[in-house]
């Protein structure tokens, strides 16, 4: 697998301005609107077609949004790592951990507060809380992780949290929203005010059944040098604005010879390669089977968490003297 990957890197990646490479890559952006699964509205998956008659089928279609909310329940599509029994056991582990800790719905671009138990912290309860924006999310199964970023004392700080790690006590979604991209690493190269959030931020409560808001903020980048060459990602990331004067990097030898290394027409047909798509994704039938297995437990757990949250938000009226 590795050899095959590197071959593709060596061929496609060398093309400097490569629309071909862009079309080959997987779709990074989600559909423009994701409806919350708890809502009674029809989701975006069945807006084009009329809702089917059988309620069970309708529920399974509605549950297809779970792939954005609980992406760690889907296995790694790489066939070398597939192990159906281990995946099933891992899913049960995830459910058991979710029963202990409140892991709410959040996306890349949401603002979360992560409370962890830190034995070296000099606080009374040995707990530390970090507030920030989720800039990346990845991993499958119990090793699923998020990267949370904030600017503390004018210095950017990032934490990588494994969300099913037993040291994590609580995860709160302070502001539930999505950005234009699934990878906000470019916030490192943006002015600090775009990733600064107050540590004592309060929870912003959305009305029940509202779709997840999409924040279409476009972040202007600082002048180069950057941590990555963001001018090459414009075909797949659209959440930033490049400055007017782009850096003048010295082109490497490989780039200069890219026209000889270019795979040419093969790159153009890669987007029609259905087998490639098949090997890099989890099919809908498999996803439906997974949601049939864990969907009920996830929905009841979510309902319980909502009840607890509503109880917390409700302030008991006191009798006036």
């Amino acid at each position, binding site marked *: 697998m590795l050899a095959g990957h590197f071959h593709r890197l060596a061929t*496609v990646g060398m093309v400097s301005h490569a629309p071909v490479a862009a079309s080959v890559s997987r779709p990074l952006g989600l559909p423009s609107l994701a409806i919350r699964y708890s809502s009674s509205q029809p989701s975006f998956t069945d807006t084009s077609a009329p809702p089917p008659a059988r309620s069970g089928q309708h529920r399974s279609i509605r549950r297809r949004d779970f792939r954005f909310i609980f992406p760690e329940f889907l296995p790694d599509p790489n066939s070398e790592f597939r192990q159906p029994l281990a995946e099933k056991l891992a899913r049960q582990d995830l459910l058991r951990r979710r029963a202990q800790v409140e892991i709410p719905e959040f996306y890349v671009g949401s603002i979360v507060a992560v409370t962890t138990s830190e034995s070296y912290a000099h606080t009374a309860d040995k707990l530390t809380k970090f507030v920030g924006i989720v800039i990346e999310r990845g991993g499958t199964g119990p090793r699923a992780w998020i990267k949370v970023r904030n600017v503390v004392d004018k210095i950017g700080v*990032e934490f*990588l949290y494994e969300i099913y790690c037993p040291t994590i006590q609580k995860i709160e979604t302070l502001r539930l929203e999505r950005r234009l991209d699934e990878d906000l690493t470019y916030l490192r190269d943006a002015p600090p005010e775009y990733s600064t959030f107050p540590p004592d931020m309060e929870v912003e409560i959305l009305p029940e059944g509202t779709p997840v808001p999409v924040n279409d903020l476009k972040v202007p980048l600082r002048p180069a040098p950057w941590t990555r060459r963001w001018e090459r990602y414009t075909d797949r990331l659209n959440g930033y604005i490049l400055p007017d004067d782009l850096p003048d990097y010295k082109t490497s030898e490989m780039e200069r010879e890219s026209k000889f290394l270019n795979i040419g027409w093969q790159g153009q047909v890669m987007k029609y390669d259905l087998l490639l798509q098949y090997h890099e994704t989890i099919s809908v039938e498999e996803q439906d089977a997974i949601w049939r297995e864990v969907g009920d437990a996830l929905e009841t757990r979510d309902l319980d968490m909502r009840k607890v949250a509503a109880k917390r938000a409700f302030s008991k009226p006191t009798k006036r003297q």
Partner: protein
Amino acid sequence: MISLLTRLELAVPPLSRGRSLWRYNDVSREAAWPNCKPSVTHHRHQFRVDTYGIQRTTRLRVVDNSEIGREAMALGRPPKVIGVNSGYHRKKPHGAIGGVGDRVTMAILGQVKRGIIVGTKISQKPGHPRFDSNNVVLIGADGTPLGTRIHAPLSNAMRPVLKAKSHPKKVDYTKILALATRFV
């Protein structure tokens, strides 16, 4: 029956293993990272050169209020590492690589000073912070910090590291923790 188009739309982006470019498998490292240096040695001997590791010639950022440190940062001449006192990669041809808690020797405004690394840019383990700059605190020959205040957040995970590196009769690096204003 789900049509093929619907199926492609419903496809989940794959979550594969790998380094930080895992989401963009079709972009090579040379194309993505502006500071990537191609190795001229045989591939058996090559080592991934990262600007994020703290090695010799790395420029650091002084985060305490010592006089020489403030002056160097104000003049835009940050200290340059000339030696790393670390066990990691110590016997490799390129020298040692420093992490949080390691001692470095620096050239700063024509003088040789020592310091303790308190924050790095390189990606860290889960639960350990990664900073946007390579931070350092200047210390004297006997291990006492030159400044009286640190204006950058320190990590809680640094406490046991500094404690282990201190020696009761020689040096006490935990004095750095007393100067910090904030822990993350």
